[in-house]
């Protein structure tokens, strides 16, 4: 159940211009994962056991009593050091009380007033869900717990709090010269393709018929050059190509002469 969320990182340095849309995608994925994973990670077992703190002689019998709140933190088989875990309770949106779980992960928050509380568990490197705990004054400190985000889904008792996942504080270093890095990068893919074509194209040309080759060469020659493009002749040439065969023939002749020169 220890889910690391580091997998979204592709391990490449992405140009700034495409970083923004990508980041928002990463973000929504992150939020989605957070929302979807939250409910299924708080599991539990059976019934509650809580005993009221003995009230001293001075208090009137039918007044408010305070009760302990018990539960267990899943420490992941000792992966989370118990002394670094802090369990804190926001009591009736006012007072805050904290404790540390024992070695087995169990904790007891003593002397808690009845009401609606929020239970927070913090451990370095891990993220725990926030729970809404309702403690009843009428039923002698019986309580029910649910996720803050989802009140309706009551968690079984005794209360067991599981981590939602490990937190990754650091960005993983991109792997240097990893094949995976190379073939994921669109620029590298483009470069690779053109490099392949550089070698493959001449081979393809060789296997062509003489006539086909000639035709191709003619077509290549007709293609407007960069200077033509800039001077705005492109459209005119294109029109010419489309409309008249005479021009075509003359240009092909010129290319063939050029080709002839080259062959020498």
């Amino acid at each position: 159940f220890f889910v690391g969320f580091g997998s979204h990182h592709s391990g490449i340095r992405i140009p700034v211009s495409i970083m923004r849309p990508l980041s928002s995608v990463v973000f929504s994925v992150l939020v989605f994962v957070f929302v979807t994973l939250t409910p299924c990670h708080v599991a539990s077992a059976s019934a509650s056991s809580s005993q009221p703190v003995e009230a001293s002689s001075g208090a009137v019998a039918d007044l408010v009593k305070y009760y302990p709140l018990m539960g267990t933190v899943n420490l992941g088989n000792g992966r989370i050091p118990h002394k670094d875990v802090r369990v804190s309770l926001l009591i009736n949106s006012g007072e805050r009380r904290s404790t540390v779980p024992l070695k087995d992960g169990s904790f007891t928050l003593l002397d808690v007033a009845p009401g609606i509380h929020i239970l927070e568990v913090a451990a370095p490197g891990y993220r725990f869900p926030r729970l809404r705990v309702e403690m009843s004054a009428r039923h002698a400190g019986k309580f029910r717990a649910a996720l803050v985000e989802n009140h309706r889904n009551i968690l079984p008792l005794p209360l067991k709090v599981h981590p939602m996942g490990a937190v990754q504080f650091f960005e993983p270093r991109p792997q240097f010269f990893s094949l995976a890095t190379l073939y994921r990068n669109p620029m590298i893919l483009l470069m690779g393709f053109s490099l392949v074509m550089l070698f493959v194209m001449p081979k393809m040309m060789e296997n062509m018929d003489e006539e086909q080759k000639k035709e191709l060469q003619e077509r290549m020659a007709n293609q407007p050059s960069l200077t033509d493009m800039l001077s705005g002749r492109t459209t005119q040439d294109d029109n010419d190509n489309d409309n008249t065969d005479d021009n075509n023939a003359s240009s092909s002749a010129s290319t063939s002469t050029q080709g002839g020169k080259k062959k020498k």
Partner: protein
Amino acid sequence: MMVTTMALSLLRLLSLVPFLLMASPVAFAIHADQDGLYDWHHAHIGIPTQVLTARAFGPTRASSVIFASKYSSASVHAQTGEIKARFVMDEGEQTTNGVAWVTTNDFNKYAVASDGARFVRAFSVADGSLSWEANTYSASQIVNENKVLDEEGDSASTTQLIVSTPGGVACLVPATQTVVALTADEGEEMWRVALNGAAKYDALVAAPDQPDELWAVGTDANGKPALVAVKAATGTAGSVHVASSAALKPYVVSGGGLHALSADGTKLVSLNAKTGSTKTRALPSGGAHELVKDGAAGTSGLVAVRQADGTVSVLDASFKAAELKVLFSTANGAHAAVSSEVCSDGKGAPCAVAVYEASENSATVKVAADGGKVVATLQVGESFALATAGAPLSCHLAAHLRKDGGVTYRAVVVSEGGEVAMVHESGVVWQRDESLAPAKAIVALDPPQRRRRAAATAAAAASVFSIDNIMETMKLQFLQTKVRLHIATPEETALAKAMSAAASDRTLNAVDLNGLRKNLVVLGAHGRLVSLHSGDGRKLWATHVPIACASKASSDASFDVPSDLRVLRAALSGDSASAGGGAELLVVGRTSAGSYTCTLDGHTGAVLEAKTFDGGVSHVLQPTHVVDSLHRHPVILVVRKADGTREARAVPNDISPELKAQLARGVHFYEADAQRGALRGYAVTTNLQVSETWAMNFPGRHLLSLAQPQAGEAVHSHVKVLGDRSVLYRHINPNLLFVASGVSPADTRGRWTATMDGGVSTGTGSAVAPADASSSSTRLADRLRPARGSMVHVHLLDAVSGRVLYSISHDDAVGPVRCVISENFVVYMYHSLRHSTTEVSVLELYDDSARLTARTVSDVVFEMVPTAIPAWLARSLHIETDVYNQTMSAHAPPPLRVLGQSYFLSASVRAMGISQTLMGLASKLVYFAEEGSGQVFSVDKRLLDPRRPVKVEATHREEGLMQYSEHLPMGFNQFSLTHGHNVALVSKVVSFPSRLESTCHVVVLGLDMLYHRMQPSASFDTLNEDFSHAFLVLTITALAVGSVVTGRMAKRADLKVKWR
């Protein structure tokens, strides 16, 4: 037409710049191997109020020393001084009522009592884990009986309520006046005894001469000391003994009874615990005295008294002697603290008392034994001198029997300034600085100018490796390249990290062009000032503001004197710095009699000038951008006199013309009474007269939070260009005042003042008035939680005129409210009762006046570059060129358009902060310090944009707006500033700009302190510190060689083809 096209293209270019800078929200995360490169973290305990050492003769040595402060308890490694484990108390519980070993002869567990001994927690010394936790009484008793516990001051936290017994621990519960004993293994209740009688007991001590007896000490209704003995094994209480005459606190238990000073401080009143008889003896030296708390207390019946001039004497006050005899006296005028007496268990070594004595330049611990003879002198060193560390606060002696039969002494000393040290006979073993826990104020200064020779020697001293050596540099580059290529072994990686740290100039204490090195001057408790280097967090200098120190010695005033720290003059560059124009700091604080100001040199901590005056300083005002001819930023102090009138003082004393000009316009401040819900605005005008300008009342509500923008914040642009090419004009108001009001818990036990119907009563008096018996139980139950319908009202005011600019109310919400203001936006958070979670709201203010909205885009562009257009051209084109210098009147504010949005946040937040960069161009980060985990997370301001649309369209995308989602992502990957470090009890997140736009300094203050150098929008103007130059050279060389070789090959191939 042409102009407009040009303008549009220019505008596009300009609007592109921030977009280029906007990297993804995770772009500023650092790599694992960069941890510790740009950040450091200091963990603190707080100034110890109680210290536990294994105080026994014999072979058992505790491996730990236990410290307890107001804020936390911790076990500290006895040899190194490192914190092994720490438990930090919550806000409502922040009174440690003592620590004690669990069982008298065992040093494996210690118990800490807190909140008036309501909770007792036992921790294991070995691993710091919790063994058990006990609750001695239920707070429901106090709630039901409608008791309001008297809020005791800091002196309450120093009273000992817990002692070890042979079977476990026993503690006195002042709220119920009972003594409860708990078992060692499980913390279960062994016995409980109610202390009846007229006296009010407030301390529990182990009887010095009877190992199985506990004494509860208190005062009766007439101010006479009272004492009752309780058997540790059974809990049977003996008869109450009351002294025959009234006496002053503190009481000291020593020998066979209790000792206190008579009301005039000239006689010692001793109450015999066995017989109940009282003995009054005159002190040998004349004049008023003061009893040293716990001083010399032990079986021999010694007490320590302090004379008016500070001289401390140890007296023999045993009941046998008819007159008091001086055994030991400190030197005249030296301040001293005395430890309790340490005795052997009948092994023949004499009982000893340690006296920690501090003079102007040094400090020593003298161990006196056998009738006042000094048997050992432990040197504490210069760092504990009076001027640096303050007067001695406490001293704790431990003695050990050596194998050869001799005795070794060790002592833990604590100074008022918060310096803590473990001292052996060979010298100081370790030293901790707890003065900055918690820090009160912080300023950042540029380090001093680099003097070439000094810098060279400093660099040589700082670096382990002589990096001047070219071979070393080569080796480092080679190693770094290997690390980069992932072919280095772990040892090589570690070596590379160490070498680059040594070679790095970030630890150098000299000013740098990029402003990446800073001196962080922090004001701690008791007027202690510490300068830290931003590179590695080392202490550059520490000092004790002398007036604060002097006042403290004479009276045992409260620990937290309100004080402030300001930069009077930043470090100057060039010759002016050497000509006496260095950095100057101003410390302002209160003494018991009045107030003090103290100017110090920012680079050495030397005191330049110190002054005292009557009345308490209530406000320290420093008008932004007012600089006098000596480059000083003058400060105005608002002083409240004893008769309630206010007056203003200027520092420096002579009012410069610049300040005079500012005063003519008025310097404004406000005063808030949070409990009564009252707010008043004042102005300081010419001749430093203070007059009230406006008042505002929030009847029946508390003020939950007040905030103002950070002075002198850089704002990049006053316009915001939207995706559809329309422009919004930011309303930037340095006098904006955020006020949140609503209900808050009335006391630390979380009792609310709100009544059932949602209406709010005005004060605790009427709310807590007992109702009739039938309805009292429901009323009580309801008082435990805030009433439904509680609201948080937010007002944005103008602090100059008191005018309300905007108001909004949040239903079903309660405090605490945290807020941060920057540029034209306000981000604040509160607790939503309806959703049981934290809500974050953002408000953005835009100027909606017709004058601005009528302008075209081209107007805006030309106004952004006013210097680009000659004046004659601007005139002929009818362009306003000085928009930046246009000010608006607070008395005639423009119509505002306020955009707002709210988000859920799945965390409780203690403090908020915002990143500050040089030009305000890099994206803003909002820092949230989480309550439980002590982590600080950064959330990009763009996630808090009120314009985040539900449906994202092309124009939104162009603007970089993200789709609205009701939850703010926080707490997950790489948003953490703290990287797993825990900053307990965060009070402030402060940010300072560097001289690079990309980089800012962030300091998190709390019980701990964390520094982090951040890049909110990744590094766009600088290379990474771990950038491998060798690798770059290697790549270029390879490319060059490759091109030459392939060129040759191509030539050859070409020739071959031609020959064919």
